[in-house]
């Protein structure tokens, strides 16, 4: 373990990015990522000349500290994946600012910044190129960023990464279809780690795996965080998994973050009615707790993101909704000790 650590830090010096040093003083330097008023709209064609904006992400702000894991939960279609992709600039945002390590991300510098931010995807089957060997997959980013001069050095690094994620180096010449889901996810993680990123977006990275394999990968994410000082944005719909992984959790509903707080805090004292029902709806793998729990079952379905209700988007399903909720969007404010909530009535 220690040997591995030493190796890695040694390598980190070699591959240090040129100059992404934070120089704008107004930003909190504890934060690796600062997202301010991020929005991403997609135009959906509704007719020959008409289109409607689909507000996948609407005015979202949050930050992630160094070595921290921020969990992002919500139901399908709430925009959590879009957040991840917008800040990687895979979907250029409609508006808003993203600062990475103090530097504002834009069209121009995103390519060089991606050396420090990587992504691990949900589906380990479609996110790996079936025509490439494991070595090519993991080494691709190393070649793109021209990190090593010789093939041999690069191969050494690939083997080292494979060892780090628990794969045998004998597997390097194999193709991805020869591996199980969990092993493929390991390949995906090795690929993300190849260029020593500081920040990784994990987008439903364990949802496709069986429970017994899921724990292996979750533990690996945690170990890698300790070893390599990584920060994560951990996107998932499984609240128990996010709770296990995260230091803080953000809850999204129809394109907006409705609540953001420390994991313990949001579990014990959820303020927003949506958070409350979402967390109470989770089936707890413990019969005694399950028998006692007062599940808050919400009425109805999530409205279409094309026709988001006015004011607070949750008001159509909210038991506490008042007239104000229809008229005005609640502000996303700090209720003390970094517990952010957007609700008029709580």
């Amino acid at each position, binding site marked *: 373990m220690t040997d591995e650590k030493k190796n890695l830090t040694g390598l980190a010096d070699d591959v240090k990015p040129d100059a992404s040093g934070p120089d704008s003083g107004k930003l909190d330097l504890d934060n690796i990522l600062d997202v301010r008023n991020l929005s991403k709209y997609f135009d959906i064609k509704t007719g020959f000349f008409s289109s409607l904006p689909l507000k996948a992400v609407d005015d979202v702000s949050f930050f992630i500290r160094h070595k921290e894991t921020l969990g992002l939960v919500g*139901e*399908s279609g709430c925009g959590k994946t879009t957040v991840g992709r917008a800040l990687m600039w895979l979907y250029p945002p409609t508006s808003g600012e993203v600062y990475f390590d103090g530097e504002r991300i834009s069209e121009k510098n995103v390519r060089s910044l991606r050396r420090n931010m990587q992504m691990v995807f949900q589906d380990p089957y479609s996110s790996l190129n079936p025509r490439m060997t494991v070595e090519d997959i993991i080494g691709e980013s190393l070649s793109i960023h021209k990190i090593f001069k010789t093939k041999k050095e690069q191969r050494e690094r690939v083997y080292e990464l494979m060892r780090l994620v628990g794969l045998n180096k004998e597997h390097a010449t194999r193709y991805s279809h020869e591996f*199980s*889901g*969990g*092993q493929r996810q390991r390949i995906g993680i090795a690929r993300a780690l190849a260029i020593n990123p500081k920040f990784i977006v994990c987008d439903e990275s364990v949802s496709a795996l*069986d*429970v*017994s*394999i*899921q*724990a*292996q990968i*979750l*533990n690996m994410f*945690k170990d890698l965080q300790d070893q390599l000082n990584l920060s994560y944005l951990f996107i998932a*719909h499984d*609240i*128990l*998994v996010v*709770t*296990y992984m995260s230091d803080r959790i953000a809850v999204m509903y129809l394109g907006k973050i409705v609540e953001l707080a420390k*994991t*313990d805090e949001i*579990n014990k004292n959820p303020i927003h009615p949506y958070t409350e*029902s*979402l967390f*109470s*709806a*989770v*089936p*707890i*793998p*413990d*019969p005694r*707790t*399950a028998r006692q729990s007062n*599940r808050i*079952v*919400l009425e109805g*379905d*999530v409205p279409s993101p094309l026709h988001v209700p006015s004011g607070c988007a949750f008001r159509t399903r909210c038991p506490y909704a008042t007239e104000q909720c229809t008229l005005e969007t609640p502000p996303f404010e700090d209720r003390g000790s970094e517990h952010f909530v957007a609700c008029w009535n709580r």
Partner: protein
Amino acid sequence: MAEYLLQVENLSTSFFTDAGEVKAVNGISFELDKGKVLGIVGESGSGKSVTAYSIMQILSFPGRVTGGEIRFKGKDLLKLSDKKMREFRGESISIIFQDPMTSLNPVYTIGNQLDEAIRLHTSRKGQEIRERSLELIGLVGINDPKRRVKQYPHELSGGMRQRVMIAMALACEPDILIADEPTTALDVTIQAQILELIKDLQQQFGMAVIMITHDLGVIADMCDEIIVMYAGSICERGTTDDIFYSPKHEYTKNLLKSIPKAQKSDERLIPIAGNPIDLLNLPDGCAFAPRCKAAMEICLEQSPEEIALSETHSAACWVNVRDYLINHKDDAGAPASGTEGGDQA
């Protein structure tokens, strides 16, 4: 001996693929009583869904039941003709599937599809059929039934579609409802709605439910009894409390340690080592042995028998045999040659 509602005995189902015979279900037996909720839990490839399909006899092509009996109220379902079986399905046992989109026909309205089920399985005629459809739609908590019957599946959300599936399954008030991962494709808040609905209906009609899922949370919440499956065999069965609070099979123990619990804690998950089940290359002994930390020599050589530990609880694990032998040293021969890795549950 009292007659069970459903009794599965020594059921084996195989898929005859080009790569060889895949034994998806390997001689399992279980019973289901009236009005009980039985959970079958396991990961992919454990044979839980194939068990359900075998009972309903809806296995797709290379799959075939190769042995055993499935008795419903004493009648062996495997001996029924196709025609008889078709009548039986839906009338006595219904099934709902994971993906409500692919299980509904996209070119017929909801009403049409419900009507069909009612027409085929009941003696209702003409107007009565539609009336029953409307009643069922109301029953599963879909508002405005009159409008909904005219809609097509694509106009409904995932949760709504699953409700329609449930309505259809209930059309003839079956004795058993098999729910095969009914909420896996749904969001948490919708999942909660559907689980509550199944619970309500189960109590209302007193039907038995077989709940098949990989989600231990769902199982904990819904079931009276639980069967844990691994690689086509039953490794442990018992009441919900037996399984969750005193698991006796190494796989169950490990499974419970590998899932995150509700509260945030710094306790690490203990993953199950190794790779998932490969049904084509099953080991000779216990199927879980290659991944088991407590595995002994015998585990690799001989598959364990299921041993009753209490009236409700039984498990198929050599570790229990070893522990028993250690505790009863005097009256037995030498204990099985155990390696280290003893565990106190």
